[in-house]
Structure formats: C-alpha cells, structure tokens
C-alpha cells in the first residue's frame, strides 16, 4: 500500500471516530433518560386521554443506525371506566419503537419503522353503555390542533416494516354483548416491505391459549391452545403468492348444547396468481375430533381424524374446485344409540363453476361410507334466483349387503330381526330435475339395481337365493310415467315346510303412469313379465311351468273406477301332489279383470274379480281316481262368485263328455254355510255311469255323521262300499248322452236331468232307449248313512220286450211271477221306493211300490205247448197270443197285491187277482175266474214247490161287466184305473233324437 493512501485512510477513520464521539457526547448530554422520559410523558399527555406511566426511556442510535430506536420500559396505560375491575389498559414490560432519524431531524416528523412489545398485559374493556377503556385517543382534539398547526410534533407517520410482539396477554371484555376473549402468550411478528411495486409481507403469530366466552341467549365458550399462524405473501405486478399455515394443538368449543374438541389441527394454504389465473391448494388435517350435542336427543361423535384437501383455480370468472375430505373412524352415538361405529367416510369430486355461481359441474364425485361408494357426476344450473336445475349420474360400487346391514344401528336392528342376507347390490342411474319457485319438478330418472349372489333367509323359514337379478326403473317426468325392467336368471324361493320354488329366466317390463296419484287410490300401471320356466314345490305339491308370460295393468281416475287387468299365459304346466295327484296342461291362459267399487261390503265384493281360463291338453291322474282324466280343452269364466264353463271336453275313464254351464255359491260352500250350486249341460258320446259313480262316491261325507245309534254302526258291514251321494253340493246336469253304460247295460239317446243336492241324487225325467225298450226314468237316491240308502224311482218302459225287462230287472220276476209266462212288447209303469242296506239289499219292511203293465198280442206260452193244447181248447188257427193284458199292482213290504186283470184269448176270458209274498217260498194266494165260455173259479195257493189248486166259485165273473159288477168290484176297477192313470201321468213327452 502506498504511503499516501495509507495516510488518507487513517485520516478518514479518525474523522469518523471524531464524529461518532461527538454524536455520542451530544446524545449522552442532550437525550438523557430523564430528558427522554419527560419528552415521552409530554407527548403522551398530548395524544392520550388516559394516564400513562413509563418506567424508563432510552434512545439507541448505533444499534438501529441510520434509524433511531426508542426504548421504553414498564409502560402502563391507565384508564378507569365504570364497572371495570382493573384500571390498567395495558402494561408492557418493554416497548421499543424504531424511528426514521432522517425524517425526525430534517422534517421534524415521526416515521415509525418498527414496533416491538415484549412482555405485558392488555386489558380491553367495554362497559354496558359502550364505553371502552381503550378509547384513549382524542381524535377531535387532534383534528383541531392539526388545523391550527401549532404542534411541533405531528402524529407519527406509520410506515411500519416490522411489528414484533412477544409474550403478551390480551383480555377483552364487552359487557354489552357478554363477550370475553382472552389471549395468553401472544407472540407475533409482522413484517412487510414494498420495494419498487414489489410487496412482500410475513406474518408469524403464536399464542399459548385463546378463549372466547359469550353469555346471554347464545352461550359460547371456545378455547384454542398452542396456536401457530404463519402467513407470507408477495405481490408484484400481476403475480401474487400467498402462503398460510395454521396449527393448533387443541380447539375446544361449547356452543349452546353443542360441544366440540379438535386436536392437532393443521391447515395450510398456498396460492399463486399470475396473469389472472389463481391457483390455490388447501389442506386441513386434524387428529381426534370429538363433538357432542346435549339435550333431549344427545348426540356424540368421535372422529379419528380428518383430512381435507382442496385444490382451487380461479381464472377470470371460472372457478375449479377439487375438494377431498376423509373422515376416518367416525363413531356417532345418538340418544345413547350407536349410529356409526368407526366408519370411514370420504367425499371428493371436482367442481366447476363461475363467480356468478350460475352453473356448477361435478365430475368424479365420490361419497363413500367404508367400502360403500357412490360416484356422482352431473351439473347444477341456476339460471335465475328462483330456479335450480340438476342433471346427475350416479353409480355405486358393489355393496356387500351383509356389511351394509351391519351399518344399521343396533337400535334399529329389530327391524331386521330374523333376516339373514348375503350377496351384493349395486345401483346405477341418472336423473334430472329442477326446483322452480320452491316446487320440485322431476324430469327423467333412470336407475338399475343389480343383485348378485343373493342368499336371504327370513325367520328361519323363508329362503331366497338369486344368482343374478337386475331391476331397472325409468321415470319420464314429462309423461309422468315410470317404466321398468326386471330380469333374473335363477331365483330360488323356499318357505320352510311349505313351499319351494325355482324361477328360471325371469324377464319383464312394467310401466306406471301417474305414480303420484297412488296416494289418492288411483294408479295407472302396466307390467309385462316373461319367465322361461318355474318349478315350485309346496309340501307334496310340485309345479313346473314353461313359457310363462304375464301382462298386468292397473288403471283408474277420478272419473273411472280403479281397474285391474291381467293376462297369464303358460306354454305348459305340470303339477304333482305326491303320489296322490299329477296334472299337466298344454297351453294355459288366464285373464283377469277387477273393477274397484268401494261401496261394496267386503274386499272381494269391492274388487269383484272376473276371470277367464282356457286350458288345452290337460291330463289328471290320481291315486283316488281309478282312471285317468284327460281334458283336451276347457274354457271357463269366473265372475260374481260364479264359474261359467263355456266349453269343455273331458275324457274320464271310459267316459267322454263335455260340460257347459254355471257353478256358483262357492263362497258359501267353502265357508260351509251353503251348498255349492251348479247347473251344467252334460253332453256325451259315451258315459260309463258305474265308473263315474265309483269315482264320486262319498264325496263330502263324514263317516261319523248322521249315525242313528251304535246298533246302526254295528249293523253296517265294513266291507260294503255303497255309493254315497256327495254332500254340500247342488248340481244339476242336463244330460244329452248318446250311449250310457250302467252295469253292463247300454242305453242310447239319454236325455233328462240329473241333480245332486246335498246328499240327494235325482234322475229327473230321463229318457233313453235300449235294446229292450224306450224308457223314461225319474229316480231319487239318498245316502243318509251307509246302511240306510234310499232309492225311489218312477220308471216307465215303453214298448218293452218282456224277457229283456226281466233280464234287466230280475226283481220284476219276483214281484210279478206270471210275467215270465208272456212274451212280446208291453208298457211297464212302475213307481217304487225302498231303503237299501249297505250291500244294496232291499229292506223289505220299507218297500213300497205301485205298478201297471199293459200289453197287447202277447205270446202266452211256447209254440210246442200251445200246439199240444190248442187242438183241444181253441179253434183252428187261433194265434198264440192274448189280445190284451192290463195289470195293476201294489207292493207293501213283501206283500204284492195283484189287482184282478182280464186275459182274453180266443173265446176264453179269465180274470186273475190275488196276493203273493216276496219271500223265500214265494207263497201266493191267487184266484182265477174263468168268465167265458164257462164260469169256473179256481184258487191257486201255496208255494212254487207246493201248488194247491182248489175249485171255488167265480169271484170275478162279473167284474168286467159294468151292469152286473158289485160295489167291491167296481171299487177295485176304480183303484186299478187310478193306479194306472197316476203312473201314466208321469210319462213325459220324449223328444226324438235324429
């Protein structure tokens, strides 16, 4: 170093040292603490309305050069207001203010560069009248004195670059509002700098504890501990940057009945702005959060923590917000009932909107409760202040139903009692709607509920399994209609001890119109359902169907009555009831209609269902039926409690018949309050009556009913199985039968009525023909008990072959023994009734009968016998016939009274009458009067093995001579005519069948 330079530097240093020494001397001599204290007091008195005490004032120059630092210790502001417990507004242990020395010296202005408060306490107090103890600046005075410009030192210009507060306590109390806030251990550092349009600011705040209490109607106590708040920001031109971090070790709040506690809360925010694009990121995390609401329904929630992250962008008017909230381990108790138990909740999504909030779009929205998630996408628009429109897509992931139901609070699980279900469910759909003037308007909603692996057990009795099922619902708000689709591959339904069903390939659609009107009792809906197959079992009953299709519609309005229509079609149906019954059908169609009439008495009458059945290719087999039943077709309707068979063809055993007609009074029959009534047209090509009677015998008969006494029971033979007329039914058959078979006898062209009424079988005016005769029969059969069977008949045989008659009815030969002596055609009218034993033996004590036989040109004896005797008795060429026979008889018990009748042959006339008994000996007592050509009387007595012929006077010689007959004979003929006429009167004209 050159010597000159060295000398120069030493000179400058010495000069500076001299200046410093002079300044120090001046400061030490002029700005002594005592003098500074007086200055401060003077200034304080000038600008403060309260008292101020300052312990010591010191001025520092070199530490803050070129600024000057004013150090104050033990600064106390005192301002006593009414009701305040403390007159100290502030008590600061150490206060330092850094002033701009240049401005102070040149402009005599005070420019505050920084302010430091260290230790102390601030008491802020406002009385009930609104008087605050911290109002210590006389603003009016300031204004006046400024204007007068008489003040040497003006209020300091505040250009604070830094404020530092350390360990200060603040106590704020507002008596009027009942609020009190306390901040303990407040430490804050605020710094800011603006250089050439660059603004930078930093804020660091920490406090040990802060508390806020309010009284009055809304009580609130809040406390936060160990709080740290850091903010920094920078702004230059259009670029900006903001950072914020907030931490609190603990936040407690009590608001009315609500308590909350949050621990270790930490929140950060970082934002940048550049060229109009603002980007911000926020994250809020907490450790355990506890909240509690007291009252009648106390609620308590405990959260393991919370984490909220949100990214936000603002560009022009466009706002993008992506929040994500995670609430782990949330436990909620309401009224002592646990509603959520350590549930994890998550919400997230991307929101796009604008500053006007006219439209909000949600993308990738997620709402999750544990593993149960709902994703949401959509848009909400608010074109005006009274209109909100929304269009939302939603979908869930697969929810495990068992785990979902596990979320049901324990207090509500009784609603699920007995329900054990597993499987998965998922929901997917979309919808739109609007809220206009507070009125909701639903647009279109489409939703699909998918079920898989469903295994449901209810009450240990009803089980349901479904491999896969989907239910879709679409609501069209414009048409006010709900449409849906249901599909299932396999559905197993089981009711323990009652039924099992398996449904394959269910597939169907349904629509519901005006759904909101259901509540008014009206509904407008249609449904179409198809099913590939269905198999079901109920106890021993098994059903299997294929190709099922069903259409259902419900309709109704205020002007029309509610109406239900349904059509069911089955391609095939097979049923089995154990080994008892099997049945199958080809196509089966059922249509149903019901119209609701609320004025009717009961539910059935109110709906009054009308049904129509169409069955093709039906087959029935039963162990109770000795023969199979085939039903090639049957169509019948049900309406107003009445079945109407429109057409049918039934093959029952050997019989082939069709039925048409009505069956009604079913309700009374089922309730056992009345008879099942029916009137049917029975048309048949061939009917096996014996087989049919065996099939229906004993229907409805109670074996223990109507027993007269124990003796009667004993007298019945267990092996006998007589036909028991069904009870509880009133059936009338109008028969039209081509051929009928009764015990091997065939009859043709049978027409008439057959009725069964509560145990009484009546054949009414049955007309038919056989090889033997044209016949007409009215008969009655009753079976009050097995060993007491009533049979009565009014039987007319027209043009009968006598030998066929005897072959057909062998008992006739016993009643009229001489009948077998004739051959040829006759008319036979016979009315009889008797009771029968269980083996159909006649109870002779009950036998009653009346009969009439008329014949003409009857062959009396065989040709050989006739030829032998004719040459002695008759003229030559006399035919072997009697001109006419008219026999009337009555039967009472075993007594057959044969009224005298006339036989005329050639010149011979004989009259025969008498009695014979229907017993083993067939004993008889007859009288024959030969009236022409001789008069001879002959009694024929005895039995068939011991015939006694006794010549006696003619008893009936004049009977057929009206002029000579006596009164008894006349009365006898009257009785004969009465019997004959009464029987013939019952003959009805018989329509011929061509």
């Amino acid at each position, binding site marked *: 170093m050159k010597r000159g330079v060295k000398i120069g530097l030493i000179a400058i240093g010495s000069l500076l040292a001299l200046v410093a020494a002079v300044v120090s001397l001046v400061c030490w001599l002029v700005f002594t603490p005592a003098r500074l204290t007086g200055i401060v007091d003077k200034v304080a008195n000038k600008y403060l309305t309260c008292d101020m005490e300052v312990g010591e004032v010191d001025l520092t120059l070199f530490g803050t050069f070129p600024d000057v630092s004013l150090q104050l210790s033990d600064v106390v502001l005192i301002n006593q207001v009414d009701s305040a417990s403390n007159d100290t507004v502030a008590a600061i242990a150490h206060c330092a203010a850094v002033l701009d020395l240049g401005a102070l010296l040149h402009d005599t202005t005070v420019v505050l560069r920084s302010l430091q408060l260290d230790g102390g306490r601030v008491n802020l107090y406002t009385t009930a009248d609104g008087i605050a103890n911290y109002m210590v600046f006389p603003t009016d005075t300031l204004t006046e004195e400024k204007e007068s410009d008489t003040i040497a030192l003006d209020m300091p210009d505040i250009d604070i670059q830094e404020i530092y507060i350390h360990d200060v306590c603040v106590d704020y109390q507002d008596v009027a509002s009942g609020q009190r806030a306390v901040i303990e251990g407040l430490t804050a550092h605020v710094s800011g700098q603006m250089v050439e349009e660059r603004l930078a600011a930093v804020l660091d705040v920490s406090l040990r504890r802060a508390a806020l209490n309010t009284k009055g109607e809304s009580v609130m106590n809040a406390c936060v501990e160990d709080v740290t708040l850091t903010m920094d920001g920078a702004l230059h031109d259009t670029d900006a940057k903001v950072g914020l971090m907030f931490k609190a070790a603990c936040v407690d709040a009590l608001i009315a009945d609500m308590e909350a506690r949050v621990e270790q809360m930490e929140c950060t925010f970082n934002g940048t702005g550049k060229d109009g694009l603002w980007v911000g990121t926020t994250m809020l995390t907490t450790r355990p959060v506890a909240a509690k609401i007291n009252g009648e329904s106390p609620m308590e929630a405990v959260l393991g923590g919370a984490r909220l992250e949100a990214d936000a962008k603002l560009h022009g008017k466009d706002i993008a917000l992506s929040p994500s909230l995670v609430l782990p381990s949330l436990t909620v108790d309401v009224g002592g009932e646990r509603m959520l138990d350590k549930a994890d909740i998550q919400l997230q999504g991307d929101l796009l909107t604008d500053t006007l909030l006219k439209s909000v779009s949600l993308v990738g929205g997620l709402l999750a409760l544990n593993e149960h998630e709902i994703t949401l996408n959509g848009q909400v628009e608010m074109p005006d202040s009274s209109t909100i429109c929304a269009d939302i897509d939603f979908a869930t992931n697969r929810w495990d139903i068992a785990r979902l139901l596990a979320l049901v609070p324990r207090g509500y699980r009784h609603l699920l009692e007995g329900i054990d279900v597993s499987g998965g469910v998922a929901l997917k759909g979309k919808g739109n709607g609007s809220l206009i003037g507070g009125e909701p308007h639903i647009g279109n909603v489409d939703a699909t509920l998918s079920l898989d692996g469903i295994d449901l057990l209810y009450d240990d009795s009803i089980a349901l399994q479904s491999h896969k099922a989907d239910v879709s619902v679409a609501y069209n708000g414009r048409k006010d209609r709900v449409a849906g689709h249901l599909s299932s591959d396999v559905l197993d339904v089981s009711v323990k001890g009652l039924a099992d069903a398996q449904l394959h390939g269910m597939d169907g659609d349904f629509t519901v119109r005006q759904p909101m009107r259901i509540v008014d009792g009206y509904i407008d809906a249609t449904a179409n359902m198809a099913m590939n197959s269905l198999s079901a079992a109920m106890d021993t009953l098994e059903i299997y169907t294929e190709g099922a299709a069903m259409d259902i519609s419900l309709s109704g309005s205020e002007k029309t009555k509610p109406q239900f229509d349904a059509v069911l079609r089955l391609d095939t149906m097979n049923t089995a009831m154990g080994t008892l019954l099997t049945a199958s059908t080809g196509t089966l169609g059922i249509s149903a209609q019901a119209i609701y009439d609320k004025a009717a008495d009961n539910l059935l009458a109110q709906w009054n269902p009308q049904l129509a059945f169409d069955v093709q290719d039906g087959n029935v087999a039963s162990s109770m039926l000795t023969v199979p039943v085939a039903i090639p077709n049957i169509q019948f309707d049900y309406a107003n409690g009445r079945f109407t068979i429109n057409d049918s063809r039934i093959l029952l055993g050997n019989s082939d018949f069709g039925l048409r007609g009505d069956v009604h009074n079913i309700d009374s029959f089922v309730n056992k309050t009345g008879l099942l009534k029916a009137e049917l047209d029975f048309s048949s090509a061939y009917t096996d009556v014996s087989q049919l009677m065996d099939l229906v015998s004993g229907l409805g008969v109670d074996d223990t009913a109507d027993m007269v006494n124990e003796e*009667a029971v004993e007298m019945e033979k267990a092996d006998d199985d007589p036909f028991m007329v069904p009870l509880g039914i009133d059936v009338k058959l109008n028969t039209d039968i081509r051929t009928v078979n009764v015990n091997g006898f065939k009859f043709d062209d049978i027409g008439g009525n057959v009725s069964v009424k509560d145990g009484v079988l009546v054949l009414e005016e049955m007309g038919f023909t056989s090889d033997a005769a044209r016949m007409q029969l009215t008969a009655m059969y009753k079976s009050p008990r097995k060993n*007491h069977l*009533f049979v*009565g008949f*009014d039987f007319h045989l027209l043009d009968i072959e006598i030998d066929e008659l005897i072959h057909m009815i062998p008992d006739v030969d016993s009643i009229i023994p001489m009948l077998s002596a004739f051959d040829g055609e006759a008319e036979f009218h016979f009315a009889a009734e008797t*009771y029968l034993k269980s083996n159909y033996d006649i109870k002779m*004590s009950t036998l009653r009968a009346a009969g009439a036989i008329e014949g003409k040109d009857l062959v009396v004896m065989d040709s050989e016998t006739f030829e032998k005797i004719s040459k002695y008795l008759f003229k030559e060429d006399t035919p072997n016939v009697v001109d006419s026979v008219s026999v009337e008889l009555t039967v009472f018990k075993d007594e057959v009274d044969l009224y005298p009748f006339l036989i005329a042959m050639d010149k011979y006339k004989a009259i025969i009458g008498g009695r014979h008994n229907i017993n083993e000996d067939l004993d008889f007592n007859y009288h024959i009067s030969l009236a022409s050509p001789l008069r001879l009387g002959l009694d024929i007595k005895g039995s068939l093995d011991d015939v006694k012929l006794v010549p006696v006077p003619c008893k009936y010689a004049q009977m057929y001579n009206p002029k000579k007959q006596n009164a008894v004979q006349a009365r006898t003929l009257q009785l004969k005519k009465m019997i004959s006429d*009464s029987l013939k009167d019952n003959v009805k004209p018989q329509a011929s069948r061509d």
Partner: protein
Amino acid sequence: MNQKRNLQGIFGMTLLLVVLYGCAPDPVPTFSVSDIYGTWQDGTLHYRYDRNYEGVTWDVADDVYESEGQRFRWSIEGEDMEHIYIMEMGESAIPKTYTIDELTPKVLRYHDDFKDYEFTKVY
C-alpha cells in the same frame, strides 16, 4: 123231476140265506178308537199311531229306527181300518185295508183277505 125240485129248493134256500145275510145290519164296534194311540209292536216291527191320524212304522230288524220310520195316514171306520202310505217320491199312495178284530189298550188284532196281524202296545 124230484131231483130238479130238490135242486131248486136248495138253490132257493141258499139264495134266501144269502139275501138274509146281506141284509143283516153291520156289527157294532166294541172298541174305543182312542185305544190305538201310541206305539205297537210285533217282534221287531213297530207302528206308532198319532192323534193327528198320522203314524210311523219301522222295523229294527232292517236297521231302521223310529226317527227313520216311514209315515202313513190312518183312519178307522167301524171295523175297517185303512192305512195310506204316501211314497216319498211322487204322489202315489199305497192303500191297505184291514178289518179290526180286537182293539184294547194293550192288544190290537186285525186282518185282511190274506193275513192276520197282532200287536201289543209298547207305550
């Protein structure tokens, strides 16, 4: 000739007897009709005569009891007793006419052209 007169005499006497017999007055009944009210029995066969001129008959040998008995109408005219059995089905009636031989509170006997009947009263 004498034989012819004898025959004419016998015939005349016979005719006279017949005429005299036919002109004889009807026998007067010696019984009270009211005695017939009640139930009569002949072995297993029962008849019950009611005061309204209706009755019921049954035979327990045929496993028929009083409640199942068949109804009839009865009348007594002098010694003549008539039973009219009305058939359950139709209008036909079966008349039976008898001549009463004895009717006492305990015994009922009657007959027709072919048979005699006797009953004792049960109650």
